[in-house]
């Protein structure tokens, strides 16, 4: 029983962190129709900056720099590498390919810097644990849940209550109609990239924190698990991305917790879970959990 509660809390924490990454995918897709394959490298950059800076300026300062720098780089990728001037809806697929190139460049450089090291981010939770009723939970997991929930609430608040959010939702549905309302598509889009970058950098902290051993050069690949979460949510739906992330996080934790009983599925089945869940959901609902025709932008 405590094993199950353990798994559920672990899955919730994992899902919450996936949601930070998946929301980034969705925001970028809504704003630009681009699938950002450089997202994992952006995440790694945020984590790396936090890791190398925390000794000198403390964890909070290092995290702030990591988040801001990653947001800035995401904005620069959008503005300078993917397009010149106004967004062109006809070239979203080309831009998607460009993000693969950006990913390779970023990842190569960061891998060289990180090498085989395990970098600690200096987060304040360490390996401390808290007793919650019958179970013992790592503080880092509670922090992952609390901070992610806060960040997700802020993002949903931005969607609903700000001019940027309304612009993004309008442009995500109908770029031309939004343009006719005088929405500044270019600005809305760059801000979307910045927000996605910031969320990725924030996610890096919790992917590197206990019980993970630290930040590795492969940590960015975890972003690839949030990709199916975004897709099974409908790709253009923030609520869908949230639901998809929780679903995948929980399934992954439950499968990992029962690895021994699931032996016949093979060792390391937990890694395949996101994709298995995605395929199952898409078989039943081809447009995703919360999908609409908006996802047809690809």
């Amino acid at each position, binding site marked *: 029983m405590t094993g199950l509660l353990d798994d559920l809390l672990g899955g919730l924490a994992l899902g919450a962190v996936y949601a930070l990454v998946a929301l980034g995918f969705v925001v970028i897709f809504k704003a630009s129709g681009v699938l950002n394959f450089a997202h994992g490298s952006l995440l790694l950059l945020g984590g790396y900056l936090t890791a190398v800076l925390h000794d000198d300026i403390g964890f909070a300062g290092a995290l702030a720099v990591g988040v801001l720098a990653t947001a800035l780089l995401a904005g620069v990728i959008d503005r300078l590498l993917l397009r010149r001037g106004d967004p062109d809806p006809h070239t979203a697929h080309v831009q998607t390919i460009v993000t693969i190139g950006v990913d390779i460049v970023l990842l190569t450089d960061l891998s060289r810097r990180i090498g085989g090291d395990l970098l600690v981010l200096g987060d304040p939770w360490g390996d401390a644990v808290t007793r919650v009723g019958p179970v013992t939970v790592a503080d880092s997991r509670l922090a992952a849940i609390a901070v992610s929930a806060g960040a997700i609430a802020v993002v949903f608040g931005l969607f609903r209550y700000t001019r940027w959010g309304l612009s993004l939702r309008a442009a995500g549905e109908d770029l031309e109609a939004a343009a006719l309302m*005088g929405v500044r598509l270019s600005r809305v889009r760059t801000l979307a990239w910045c927000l996605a970058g910031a969320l990725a950098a924030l996610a890096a902290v919790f992917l590197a924190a206990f019980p993970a051993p630290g930040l590795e050069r492969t940590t960015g690949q975890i972003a690839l698990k949030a990709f199916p979460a975004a897709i099974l949510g409908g790709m253009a739906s923030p609520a869908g991305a949230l639901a998809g992330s929780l679903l995948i996080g929980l399934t992954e934790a439950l499968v990992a917790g029962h690895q021994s009983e699931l032996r016949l599925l093979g060792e390391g089945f937990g890694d395949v879970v996101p994709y298995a869940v995605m395929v199952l959901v898409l078989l039943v609902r081809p447009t995703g959990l919360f999908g609409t025709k908006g996802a047809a932008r690809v």
Partner: protein
Amino acid sequence: MPEAPPDDLPALRVEHVDVTYGRAVSALRDVSLTVPHDSVVALLGANGAGKTTLLRALSGTLRLYRGAISAGRVRYGGTVLDGRDPVAAVQAGVVQVPEGRRVFTGLTVDENLRSGGLGLSRRGSAQVAEARDRVFTLFPRLAERRRQAAGLLSGGEQQMLAIGRALMAAPRLLLLDEPSLGLAPLMVDRIAEVVREIHAQGTAVLLVEQNAGMALSLADHAHVLETGEVRLSGPAAALAGTDAVRRLYLGEEGAA
């Protein structure tokens, strides 16, 4: 809409405009027309004549279609609009209701209306509320359904929402692209009434239609586009009397 101040009575002037798509397809050639500040001007023409293309040229959305103004000028009052982006047109007071309504179906009626104000600089919530009240007075139906998703509205209601959304930007010139398209006759009459009301409140209207009967009954002036060129121009009443218009655009109404 407030009356335009008397010292500032802008007219839309389209002067010798050519538009090409993809640098190759010529869609408009040497198009000139004027929409005075206090008028309703109709633009008629069959499918593919170039009506929508002209509105894209005015609103700065040609680029989304790989098109461009290759010659000529578009001016609204003192503001040059050719070569500018859609924000410039909206801020100059030229706002378009696109063909096919194009409301944001996943957003609520209220959010659609809010989106109409996105092109203006941040306004006080009081002004937004005032603009919205004006829209709700014009379209009481929208007030009843303000929290519903726009996708759930009927075609006629969506057309009203599309017009209401544009009115949120406080236009001085409203560009309407085939507002009667696909609507039942009763709804077409209602739209005509609305155009009259909007005009009476001080907003000029450029009305693009294939429904020539409706357009000519509303307009002071009219132009007929044919394969990218202005074929006929004149007072609406005079055009309604010409044989060509009666035969081509008024269908059986004019056949007698």
